[in-house]
């Protein structure tokens, strides 16, 4: 297993360098001039290339060097743990990342936990009641919630619970999972992807229920709940965990809208700011962190397979 994890991580490094190169190149050649963006907020100064002040800032920030030199310098600094200084707010990128990372991860983990706790049982219930009203109700509800985008669900829930029936304060910022402020953001984060998990769980249960060993278990006269819990659920979890990995990855990397609407200071908002301000250091730092999180998530999903299905242990041993 250790060998497997080691090689997985080794394969990650060239991919990371390649992606950073692409992002850096996109920003360098196509993202606009960060200095002009820096000074265009409300400035009345004519801040154009050639202006001594413009050139001085460019030189002092090291932005007048060739592309490859700048990129190489960035990589070298990252290898030494230095993520650089944000061009936009003149603060260390690492400081912002370390403040934002736990928030984004805790939202993603909490939403994933909610999805697992609610979504998997609903999928199982739907499968056990195939084509009857519970199945129809669960599936149509899942489809309904899947059709509501985050930027619609968020203000609607706020209007409902903060204004029409003011039982909650308007959520802003992030004070932790177990706070009143987290109720609406976590609901919005989990309700849409939950539809995917419900459908996946339902489909997997239906597949398993037609297997010979389930028929055998039932023929032996085992109680139905024992058959489901002990024999059917375990193989069902493999595809569901795969789906949960995808959901988790999306929550980690796609929290932008959620964070903007609720004023949550997570990674998504840093990415948005990095793009808008053409802030190389910030965007590259965020890319690196997101990559690490996605890789880690996929790794955890892969590691969990043999726990769920021992037949996969052999496959992983050969996977180098």
């Amino acid at each position, binding site marked *: 297993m250790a060998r497997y994890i080691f090689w997985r991580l080794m394969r990650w490094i060239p991919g990371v360098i390649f992606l950073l190169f692409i992002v850096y190149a996109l920003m360098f050649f196509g993202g606009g001039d960060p200095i002009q963006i820096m000074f265009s907020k409300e400035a009345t100064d004519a801040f154009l290339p050639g202006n001594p002040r413009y050139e001085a800032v460019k030189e002092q920030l090291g932005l007048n060097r060739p592309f490859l030199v700048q990129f190489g310098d960035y990589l070298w600094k990252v290898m030494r743990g230095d993520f650089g200084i944000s061009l936009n707010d003149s603060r260390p990128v690492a400081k912002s990342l370390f403040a934002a990372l736990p928030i984004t991860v805790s939202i993603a983990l909490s939403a994933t936990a909610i999805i697992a706790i609610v979504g998997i049982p609903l999928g199982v219930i739907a499968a056990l009641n195939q084509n009857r009203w519970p199945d129809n109700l669960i599936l149509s509800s899942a489809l309904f919630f899947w059709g509501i985008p985050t930027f619609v669900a968020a203000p609607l829930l706020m209007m409902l619970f903060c204004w029409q029936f003011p039982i909650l304060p308007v959520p802003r*910022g992030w004070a*932790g999972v177990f706070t009143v402020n987290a109720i609406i953001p976590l609901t919005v984060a989990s309700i849409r992807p939950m539809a995917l998990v419900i459908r996946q769980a339902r489909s997997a249960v239906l597949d398993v229920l037609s297997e010979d060993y389930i028929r055998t278990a039932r023929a032996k006269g085992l109680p139905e709940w024992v058959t489901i819990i002990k024999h059917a659920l375990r193989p069902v979890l493999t595809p569901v965990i795969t789906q949960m990995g995808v959901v988790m990855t999306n929550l980690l990397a796609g929290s932008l809208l959620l964070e903007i609407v609720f004023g949550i200071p997570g990674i998504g908002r840093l990415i948005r*700011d990095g793009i808008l301000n053409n802030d190389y250091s910030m965007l590259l730092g965020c890319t690196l962190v997101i990559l690490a999180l996605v890789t880690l998530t996929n790794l955890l999903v892969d590691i969990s397979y043999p726990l769920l299905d021992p037949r996969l242990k052999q496959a992983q041993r050969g996977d180098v």
Partner: protein
Amino acid sequence: MKRISSVLTAMLIAVFVLSACGTPATAPVENPPTEKPAATEAPVATEAPAAEKVLTIIDPVVTKDFSPLRGGGPTVRQLSLWWAPPVWADMKGELHPMVFASWSSSPDFKVWTFKIDPKAVFSDGSPITAEDVKGTWELCTQPLTKHQRVSLFFSGVVGYDEAVAGNATTLPGIVVKDASTVEVTLKASDPIFVNRIATNLIGPVKISQARGADGQEIVDWWHAENKPAVSGPYMPVAMDVETGSVEFVPNPNWWGPKPKLTGIKYFAMEDGAAAIIMLKNGEADINMHSDMPTTFDELGAEYVGTSMPATPVLQYFWINSNVPPMDDLNCRKAFVMAANPEEMFKASHPHGPGEYGTTLLKQLLGDRETNKPTTNNPEGAKAAFELCSYKDAMPKIYVAGTTNPQAEVAAQVLIEQWRQVLGIQETEMVPAMDKLSVADQAKVQVFRDDVGTRVFDATSLLLGSIYSKSGNAQAKMGGYLNAAIDALIEAASALPPSDPNRDLKALEAEKLALEDFVFIPWYDEGPTMHMMPWVLNYSRNIDWQIVEPWNLDIDLSKRP
């Protein structure tokens, strides 16, 4: 199953741990402690105890950089709460002492001497010194400080060019005469230098805290956790840059009028819908900036009102008199006279705020006799159009700078007025010049853009709008040059503000521009208020600064 349970348990533990690690950025907080005993507060019969008088200001932009040395952008919108300006200007443009108690100039207006108020101290009780003033202003000029508007204040100071180019960290034109006296030497005469520095954007900071040994700004020196010594009526006690939030309490060493609030919360709320709910609920009192299509219906006319300052921003359509058909005076006259700014403004801003435009100097010289506007004269327009040499071969008219929905509406109305009065058919609205080919960019005849002046001075407004060396005349008016106008503006700008001829010459220059038909007024814009009715004594100036922040108050009996 045991292993699965272990994995799930581990995940849940991770959630708990991460949740605990997550920055409790904007957790609901207790009302900040007051620095003075509540018993010393004057009793207010209809309101709650003073300890609860906390104003909440929200901002749609997350500010991570609260340095008072940036000079522009959302980052400076709360500066007047915690930093005192050298001199302050009220809403009528009149100057009042603040850090500087008095000032004087040499007869040629090239050397200015400022005396610091002996009562002026920082929040830590230390006096504001001439070294602090000099150091702050020098730091503003450093490239890495990224001050957005430093040239507006110090470009005339001896040594400025070397400092902004990064070749010097000091300004030889600013000299410390003694602990409370600063002398500023200018490269050329500037009779309104003191008016220029009447802004919060260059308020003195405690330079020993802000500037490092290398002459550059120290990272995060302004952060509340570093306990910066501030000079305004309020001081920060908590700050979270990731959520753009600050909590202020009254500054116990503030030497000005006693602040009326016991605390101010300032934080970012990017989502417009959430901001509206917070304002309606009373969870917020002021929004620094917000324009949603439903704002008027949701929050009413009072909320979207404006405090028209002495120095409004003029939203105008500027004419390039060097391209056909505008190179013919009669054509320009016809296009300007056919326009009706009142209708344009009603269509673009049905609920305001602002006033429809008339002339450049009307807002600045409102109480005095000013020039008459040349717009809204359909018959005159038709008569002029008969004399227009392009009447039978009218080129396509481009209206550029329609970068926002309001400007689009105004341009549409303007184009319709031209169609109805002059029969102009072929037109095109251009949001940005780069949407046109290079060849067509040179043909643009009308460009929508704003001009303004942060100094209550008619000549300054003309210097930034119709003077041939202004950015507006060069970029938006196609290099407009009227020698007579330039001569009058230059003559006016050499006179002190107290000389009545300064304004008379400005009026004369404006009259020539009106007769040259080189602009179409749209509306005069003041800073939007975006405050709920229970907020008292709130007004903002052209720098987005709260004027007289010590008077800011709330009527808690009206707050939900």
